[in-house]
């Protein structure tokens, strides 16, 4: 009985949704593909019918020409269009400037071209002759100029809508380097990149994606550096994506990435124009999505996660130490609790005697097995982090304090958790923030390794590491091996992995990424500074 109802419910539901979908389809297909008619009223009627429930659409009909014999209409969406600009650049020329035309100049204003060439003072416009493209442009914020007698309309793209000003991005704060970050408006973002690379080869390819969202997506690359196969592949993958809406670049990332089953990201994202410019200059391609400050860059290699833009702005010595610290911190953040558990539960003979005695003293009253203790603490840490991120800043701090005091100190005092475990987990927590790009994968790995350590000790951890290594080695990102230049080995590429060699010694672009037929060198040879060693002063 219950099953019957359930099935019926399901069936009905699916039927309904299918119907709805089909209706919608036929509806849109029926009208949108039609060409515009030359009858203004008819056109307006159709548009009004389609947008009948949208109260923010303005239909402004007017007559113009020096004898007011031409009829026109301006259609735009209030909330998107900049009315001041409409008045100044479209309506004013049409209504008043046309009055000033000499009587003898007999222009045929039923031709859209005539208007756009002679009257309007706008540059960014598009001629449309299909209802569908008219609607697309209207919904994207253009003002649509319809003229009686013409079966074409003019879509005038007006100044941008309101957008955030350029600020320093929250995710990638630098001490030294440009402070600007991408914003939600994609045209601003492209401008930011163009300002960094003023090269004729810089290409900006536009895609419109999403059936409903009609989001602008741009591929930006340098033609002479990028591998044409890469661009071909990106186009292919982007064209495959047939989804309703793209609200963030993450949507695209998940549809175009190489290995959706992997915990490692194969598409990198960043918020800083200088970083994107640097990557484009290495022969990568950036994918900009309207409506988000996060720009996707492909191909991604694992090592990128450990590199920061600042590494190249600062001098190499300190940076090399920082690099190694980042690698270590990734190791600590993934393996820390696992090694602790493996050592204290399975391999106590490997702990120095005095340390073992202090660990034993600390654990004396702890009622849980070490593995459970570790899981509890990690869970508490992730909980704190998640709670802290979502809350407003002042409250977030409170959460941090409560967490640190209550979970850290009090649980040790109460004998629930051993002090060493608190140290291990906090070290892990701190280390996990040092490599932001791999925080996600690091967190997953941490739990996996911990489980392996709890099950099979060091043996489990080693097997897990080997499997991870194999997995990483088999990953590819848009044709580039993920672990390049370590796997497969590339000695020139190693200059920028564990140590950051001086800029003048890294003369070659990454070979696995840049186009083989392009110029492999990013600078001339022998640029090592060779200053004059004599004193400037002439006095002896």
């Amino acid at each position: 009985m219950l099953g019957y109802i359930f099935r019926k419910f399901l069936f009905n539901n699916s039927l309904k949704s299918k119907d709805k979908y089909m209706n919608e389809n036929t509806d849109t297909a029926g009208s949108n593909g039609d060409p515009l008619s030359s009858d203004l009223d008819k056109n307006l009627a159709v548009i009004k019918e389609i947008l009948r429930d949208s109260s923010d659409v303005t239909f402004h009909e007017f007559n113009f020409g020096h004898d007011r014999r031409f009829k026109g209409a301006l259609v735009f969406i209030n909330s998107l269009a900049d009315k001041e600009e409409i008045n100044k650049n479209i309506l004013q020329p049409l209504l008043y400037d046309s009055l000033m035309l000499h009587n003898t100049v007999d222009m045929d204003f039923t031709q859209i071209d005539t208007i756009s060439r002679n009257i309007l003072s706008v540059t960014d416009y598009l001629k449309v002759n299909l209802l569908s493209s008219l609607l697309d442009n209207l919904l994207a914020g253009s003002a649509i100029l319809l003229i009686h007698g013409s079966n074409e309309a003019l879509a005038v793209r007006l100044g941008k809508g309101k957008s955030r000003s350029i600020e320093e991005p929250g995710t990638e704060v630098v001490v030294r380097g440009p402070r600007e970050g991408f914003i939600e408006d994609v045209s601003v973002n492209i401008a930011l990149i163009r300002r960094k690379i003023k090269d004729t080869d810089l290409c900006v390819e536009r895609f419109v994606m999403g059936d409903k969202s009609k989001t602008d997506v741009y591929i930006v690359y340098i033609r002479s550096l990028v591998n044409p196969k890469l661009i071909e592949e990106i186009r292919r993958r982007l064209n495959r994506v047939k989804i309703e809406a793209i609200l963030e670049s993450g949507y695209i990332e998940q549809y175009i990435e190489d290995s959706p089953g992997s915990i490692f990201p194969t598409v990198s994202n960043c918020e800083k124009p200088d970083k994107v410019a640097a990557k484009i200059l290495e022969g990568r391609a950036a994918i900009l999505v309207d409506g988000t400050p996060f720009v996707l860059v492909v191909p991604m290699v694992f090592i990128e996660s450990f590199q920061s833009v600042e590494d190249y702005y600062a001098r190499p010595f300190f940076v090399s130490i920082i690099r190694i610290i980042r690698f270590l911190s990734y190791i600590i953040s993934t393996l820390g609790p696992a090694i602790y558990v493996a050592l204290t539960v399975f391999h106590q003979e490997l702990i120095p005697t005095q340390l073992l005695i202090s660990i034993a003293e600390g654990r004396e009253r702890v009622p849980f097995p070490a593995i459970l203790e570790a899981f509890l603490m990690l869970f508490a840490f992730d909980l704190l982090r998640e709670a802290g991120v979502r809350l407003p800043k002042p409250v977030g701090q409170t959460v941090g304090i409560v967490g640190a005091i209550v979970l850290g100190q009090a649980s040790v005092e109460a004998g629930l958790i051993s002090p060493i475990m608190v140290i291990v987990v906090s070290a892990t927590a701190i280390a996990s923030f040092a490599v932001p790009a791999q925080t996600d994968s690091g967190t997953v790995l941490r739990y996996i390794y911990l489980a392996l350590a709890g099950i099979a000790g060091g043996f489990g951890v080693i097997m897990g590491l080997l499997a991870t290594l194999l997995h990483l080695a088999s990953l590819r990102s848009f044709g580039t091996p993920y672990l390049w230049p370590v796997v497969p080995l590339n000695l020139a590429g190693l200059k920028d992995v564990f140590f950051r060699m001086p800029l003048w010694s890294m003369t070659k672009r990454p070979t696995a990424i840049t186009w083989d037929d392009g110029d492999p060198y990013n600078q001339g040879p022998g640029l090592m500074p060779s200053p004059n060693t004599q004193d400037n002063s002439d006095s002896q």
Partner: protein
Amino acid sequence: MRKKTCLSMVKLVLYFFMMLTLSGCLGAREINDLEIVIGMGVDKGEGGQISLTAQIVNVSSSGGRPSSSGGGGEGKPFWNVSSKGDSIFEAVRQITHMTGNRLFISHNQAVIFGNDIAAEGLQKYLDFFLRAHEMRPTALILVAEDKASDVMDTKPETEKYPALNIAKLVETYGFTSHLYKVNMKDFASSLMSGTTAQIAPLLSIVKEEESEDIYVSGMVVFKDGKMVGKLSHDEARGLLWVLGKVESGVLDVSLPDGKGKAILEIMKAKGQVTPVMEDDKITFQIKIKAETSLSEQTTTENLATNEMFEKIQEASAEIIHQEIMAAFDKSKEFNADIFGFGEMLHKKYSEQWKKIEKNWDEIYPTIQLNINAETKIIKTDLLKKPVSPKKEEK
């Protein structure tokens, strides 16, 4: 494509599940359940049984957190548990009747054999300590003057644990070079050579009115695992000179004119032994080079002159010579090749060695030593001249 991903995920889950069910956390031992053994003593019990004493860290009394139990630890920080058995392993397992947990002997620092065990021979007791995977080959071997359990009961004043204290006493042999640390692997190695005699430090207890203290009173000499005698401090150093193991120490030089003493600190020492075999005569050329510093003097005379240095150096070389000879005489007395002379012959004259190997016990007392000791004073530390009234120095 999607199917494949799905399949691999299923596989991954299966893999995990398999690991969980197959292992079931077997082999896991929480630290709380460990009885951490830091020292073991082996004595002879009644009826030919073995009496084994294990020193276990008493975690709860040592007070990891002072706040937890107000008064701090009242009990001893260690617990000596004894049991009896026919074999060492049996005795080790017998202890679980008292501890409730299995002994964890990976952190065992020292194995102390009682006098009676050493006299009987260590060979048959050693096997367990080498074979058990928890035992480490770096564990030290020592011999107690009387009973091993007594030594392990003696609580040191500054260290918490007697066993760690004993290990420290031996590890720092270099300050005097009066003894040498011998671990399981060294002992086994000399036992396997067939001709070399084994040595191990000897622990004694000094009893004073209220306190008892442990000290290393010399070295025990074993032949084929059986204790045959004892070397005094100086004799032990004589042995170390030859083995090249002297690190530091004190040379007490009486000045030739009998006026007082010069005390030298050994800074660096090197020993080199070359066997020479001529017909049936076996000689060992022993070359000792030591660098010393003048660290104390009991006369008012200024010793920091080249002439005095020469005299002191000569006298100190003589001391080294005597120490070596003393050790050698002792070893002849025991007929135990503590220096490993036999091995040296084996390495250099492997052909001839095969002939004499069997008769080594007879040959050993007849070998000759040709000792050439040299010392050098390389510094006088903070003083250039002795502390003395000015008038003396004319």
